[in-house]
């Protein structure tokens, strides 16, 4: 077993986050009420340092390099996702402190857990083997469970965390069992490359298929694809609002990264893709059901966090369209999925940031009706929220529009997916309807009671960053999508 420093250095961004998380944990013991906010800044510093390491790595990552017996890989896709996670954790660290202070549960472990969660996500994005995938998924998920339940005073937070944890543990069980089955049928292979080499032989056994789909089911659970989405509304509603944004964007991006890599390099053999039991067919059905159910369920929600939870289910459906297109041979599908995840991260973090901003300790303002009149009293924030909602709905000139556009363009390269694109487009019309309900409340109704938001400089800065980023992605998407990969194929 070789273990040289270059292999370690290749994962410097992840290590920086873990190291900074440990520093925060230690520093927490010395922290007082007044200087505890400094811990968030430590975390932000860690994110920036990690981003710096990422940028250094970028040029040489054009060639994929695997390390540790093929269990981890550094390539452009992984680094692009890493950047997405860094965006998510950085913005969470900006949005969270005022919220935590207002609700009275600021503690250093929170910031450390955000960093650990992000490191877990990075592990997932880099994973090219089962062991690293499992470690990454568990690191990420444990952080997410604890963060969901971190608001100890709130019953809903505990309830959400409990549900999330129980369902998540079940999913992990499925995943481990699936890995064991694949391991057994392939004659002891753990890395994706090794599995891919053994697939022609192993695919003769139905046990292999059980293994393959058990793993995939666990990942579908993480992205909240229908019918594995039941936990999402409760967990999203219960979690402290900044955590909801972090979970919705980061966990989803990581799990999609895992799905894409697993299906591409592990189960990419045509034997597994195109057959009647092939994953491409299954993904097509799953994508259609997820888009329709997610968006229709969101229509009926009054609580804005639950609404966005169901909307995130719908977004998982759009992303699955992209993954299915990748399976059917569309070259541009992978960059489209990656761009979608980036744009979705900015948009989701921003919208949950606004939700965290609008409430205070007495009055959380989580219902659509509570947003009446924000457009008049706080025009700038209302404008930012409108940008986020339009981006979620896929209306130009926002990042969400280009994200959907690239995705559907990729899907239209295969004739089998025409109908799926039409389903996607129509369900995004449905989604516009409920997103606009919030806009209607903000602009078209008169306020019912005075607005006392949790205002802070860091929140404002983060809102400006997210809103500008969403518009930037919507007007000049060129470089961002080119970093994700060649969109035109061939």
């Amino acid at each position, binding site marked *: 077993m070789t273990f040289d420093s270059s292999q370690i250095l290749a994962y410097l961004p992840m290590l920086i986050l873990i190291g900074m998380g440990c520093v925060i944990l230690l520093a927490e013991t010395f922290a007082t009420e007044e200087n505890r906010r400094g811990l968030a800044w430590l975390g932000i510093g860690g994110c920036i340092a990690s981003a710096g390491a990422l940028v250094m790595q970028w040029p040489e990552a054009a060639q994929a390099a695997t390390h540790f017996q093929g269990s981890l890989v550094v390539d452009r896709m992984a680094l692009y996702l890493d950047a997405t996670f860094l965006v998510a954790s950085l913005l969470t660290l900006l949005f969270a402190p005022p919220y935590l202070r207002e609700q009275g549960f600021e503690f250093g472990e929170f910031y450390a857990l955000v960093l650990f969660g992000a490191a877990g996500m990075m592990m997932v994005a880099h994973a090219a083997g089962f062991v690293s995938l499992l470690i990454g998924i568990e690191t990420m998920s444990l952080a997410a469970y604890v963060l969901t339940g971190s608001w100890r005073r709130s019953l809903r937070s505990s309830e959400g965390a409990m549900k999330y944890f129980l369902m998540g543990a079940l999913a992990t069980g499925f995943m481990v069992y699936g890995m064991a089955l694949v391991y057994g049928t392939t004659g002891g292979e753990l890395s994706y490359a090794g599995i891919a080499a053994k697939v022609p032989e192993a695919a003769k056994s139905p046990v292999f298929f059980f293994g393959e789909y058990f793993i995939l089911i666990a990942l579908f659970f993480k992205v909240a694809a229908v019918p594995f989405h039941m936990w999402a509304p409760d967990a999203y509603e219960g979690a402290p609002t900044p955590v909801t944004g972090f979970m919705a964007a980061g966990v989803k991006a990581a799990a999609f990264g895992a799905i894409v890599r697993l299906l591409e390099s592990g189960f990419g053999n045509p034997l597994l893709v195109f057959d009647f039991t092939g994953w491409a067919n299954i993904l097509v059905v799953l994508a259609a059901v997820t888009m329709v159910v997610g968006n229709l369920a969101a229509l009926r929600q009054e609580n804005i966090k639950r609404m966005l939870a169901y909307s995130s289910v719908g977004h998982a459906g759009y992303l699955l369209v992209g993954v299915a297109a990748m399976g059917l041979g569309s070259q541009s599908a992978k960059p489209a999925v990656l761009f979608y995840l980036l744009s979705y991260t900015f948009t989701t973090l921003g919208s949950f940031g606004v939700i965290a901003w609008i409430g205070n300790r007495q009055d959380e303002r989580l219902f659509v009706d509570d947003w009446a009149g924000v457009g*008049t009293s706080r025009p700038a924030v209302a404008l930012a929220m409108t940008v986020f909602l*339009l981006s979620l709905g896929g*209306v*130009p*000139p926002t990042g969400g*529009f280009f994200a959907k*556009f690239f995705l*559907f*363009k990729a899907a*239209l*390269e295969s004739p089998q997916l*025409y109908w799926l*694109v*039409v389903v996607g*487009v*129509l369900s*995004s*019309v449905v989604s*516009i*309807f409920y997103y*606009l309900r919030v806009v*209607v409340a903000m*602009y*078209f109704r008169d306020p019912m009671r005075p607005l006392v938001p949790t205002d802070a400089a860091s929140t404002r800065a983060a809102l400006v960053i997210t809103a500008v980023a969403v518009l930037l992605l919507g007007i*000049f*998407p*060129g470089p961002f*999508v*080119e970093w994700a990969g*060649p*969109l*035109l194929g061939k």
Partner: protein
Amino acid sequence: MGILTWITLLPLAGAALVMLVPREEESILRGIGLGTAIVTFLASLFILSDFDASKAGFQLEVDKVWVESLGVHFHLGIDGISLWLVLLTTFLMPVTLLAPQAIGTRNIRVRDFMVAMLVLEAGMIGAFVALDMFVFYVFWELMLIPMYFIIGIWGGERRLYASIKFVIYTLVGSLLMLVAILYLYAQYHAATGSFSFDYVALSRLSLPFEPQLFCFLAFALAFAIKVPIFPLHTWLPDAHVEAPTGGSVILAGVLLKFGTYGFLRFALPMFPLAADATAPLIAILAVIGIVFGALMAYVQSDAKKLVAYSSVSHLGFVVLGIFSMGQMGVQGAIFQMLAHGISTGGLFLGVGLLYDRRHTRNLEDFGGLWKKIPIFSACFLVIVLASVGLPGLCGFVGEFLILLGTFGANKAWTHSGMQGFFPMPRLLTVISASAVILSAMYLLTMTQKIFFGPLDKPANKDPHVRDLHGREYWVFGIIIVAALGMGIYPQPILARSEKSVAGMIDSFQARLKDAKANPQAPAHLFPANP
């Protein structure tokens, strides 16, 4: 930076400027909004002077790379078809902003209103001059958001319902159109190996009949909702009645034209086989719309709703003219689009003024107003007559050309699937000509109920009901001059659109012939135009 980029961006610059002014400074805000609109109009006159009427193709083109990896270009250009629609847009916007009633009676949030109107103007101009399908789509959607806010914030009682309905209807159509655009993009790549959203390039793509039909239907749905063609018109009365006066004027004056413009620019030239096959069907729907809209207008008691339904009827003529697929019919359709923009814009401004004075739109509440406010009454009558299509005013020229063109459309339709069914174009012409009488009926009945008869209702004698004053003179004066000018001397407009229309019809016929020769040929490119 060509002139087209300038006039597209000018309103946006104005909107940015407006946002910097404090919201309390209402008169400054109105001044900036109006000033921007006027400057944009003056700038658009440069297009007119630079435009070469003897050319059929696109002129004053701007072509910049926007998203290189996709082959999206910021490609703008103008021809005899879009030229006048751009001018209509830049003309109506300052007139609307000049009207004191534009914001409606809930006279609030002037700053937001100016921003919405100016962004809307940028979207409209951009969509008219875009020559890249992608850019077109972006501007097309960009129009939607400000209009949504205009109806939703400054609208009437049921504004929430109307604004959502407007958005959902429009989006269903436009998103399916986006799918069709993406499909064309993929097919173009398959046929040529290069990626492009360029209109000129994509319109040379010849698809087999079935995909062509599906794409045509996706485009046609988007445009038919916008026009609106019966039976997709139900959003329109709601949107119009609830929108503030300024919103109604722009909605009827310009936004509806995107439907008919879209047919003319995209749906017909790009999918000749499908357009040819469905032309009789769409023409029948158009005629149903003409008659149905007129009858609905006749039974309305709300003046604004009456004018809204009259739009359904009048735009039916435009669709009929376009699908006659002949020089005269299409030119008539273009003229009718402009005339409808002026006359219906004027009608909405008039109804808005009446509402401002009387706080009602119910026809039964009026009566004898001519004795009380003679100048406005005379102005309104002229606009009504222009809308009815009295010779010498703008409405006549377009309707006349359309009816003439449709009557002669037998030849164009002999190829289509419904050939020999019955002498349809002539029958349709006869039916729609009779609808001209209907339009006289409902519009003159409305005029009669408002302005004539005894001045016996106390509310109408109120001193608050006063005649035109101040800027209102300008508003109605400009509209009447435009209506008269277009009616008496339509030649400049017809002359500048003639070559482009002829070129479009020629290439349509040539492509149709080419495609008919082998309708199942795999996707390939038509030969370039001579």
